[in-house]
């Protein structure tokens, strides 16, 4: 990626907090405090700390340490596509 592309995408970069509402809609629970691990580098952190790119038809969440894609979500009128191959796990707390 060139320097120009890097600066452009950094301008648009948010974090997992910015899509908390959409995630809660999909998972039916608060998700930003959910721990997860990057499948590429092993970095562990909460969903809220992941780097978020949402100015596209889909949503991309990247690892804040190595910048690899961890989670992709695409919504269509009748379905939600979730690709989490970049995450080793998501720890969903059981609701009390």
């Amino acid at each position, binding site marked *: 990626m060139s320097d120009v592309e890097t600066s452009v995408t*950094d*301008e*648009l*970069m*948010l*974090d*997992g*907090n*910015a*899509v*908390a*509402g*959409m995630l*809660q*809609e999909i998972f*039916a*629970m*608060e*998700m*930003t*405090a959910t721990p997860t691990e990057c499948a590429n580098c092993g970095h562990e952190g*909460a*969903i*809220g*700390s992941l780097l978020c790119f*949402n*100015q596209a038809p889909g*949503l991309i969440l990247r690892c804040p340490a190595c910048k690899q894609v961890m989670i992709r979500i695409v919504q269509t009128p009748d379905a939600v596509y979730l690709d989490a191959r970049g995450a080793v796990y998501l720890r969903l707390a059981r*609701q009390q």
Partner: protein
Amino acid sequence: MKRTLDWQIATVKAVKQETPHVKTITLTLPDWVQHKAGQHYDVRLTAADGYQAQRSYSIASQPERTGEIDLTVERIEDGEVSSYIDEVLIPGDLVELRGPIGGYFVWEVALGGPLLLVAGGSGVVPLMSMIRHRASAKSAIPTRLLYSSRSFEDIIYRDELEQLTNESSALKVFHTLTRSQPSGWTGYARRIDQPMLREVVEGLGLPQVFICGPTPLVEAVANDLVQIGLNPTHIRTERFGPSGTSA
């Protein structure tokens, strides 16, 4: 916590001009739920043709205020939601929203301190909710806010922050003005850097850190704080930018 997020129709109770580009909207909620400081609401606008636009806005008010919330909104140039809020909304208007949302960038008195808050521009909003919550709970948790604004006129909550620091000796507020400073300005006058952060955290111990602002500021401050020896696991960040999630 409620599992599902339902949209509800809130009523605008009051509109307050905070700075030339920032307004606070007080909303009365029919289905009010106590929030945690740092959480936000999603606001959704629907046009006559069905087109919808949705944005997240941080709650500025403290959780102790029941039945209503304050959202402080900065007008973004060409922002389709923020410009509507800035130009159109008046008391009595109805606004569709859902929340409170978020569980990562949140703080409550029970979590303890000390607390280091770093804000850039309207990134101060969720941190103000924490400061107001701390005051409402009559907490003496040592708290420092480092707040970067473009100019003196752009400082949101300026008078209230001064009043709160007068009321609590454990709360300290440090301003930096990056573009212009009034004559006789005694605060910082540059972008946040390591020497500034060192001075602000001096004697604070090992704080829990919340940083909110534009992405470049958040990245720089988080890196600087790790380099001056703070624990990365104690640092929580929230970035905001020109984008939003469209519905």
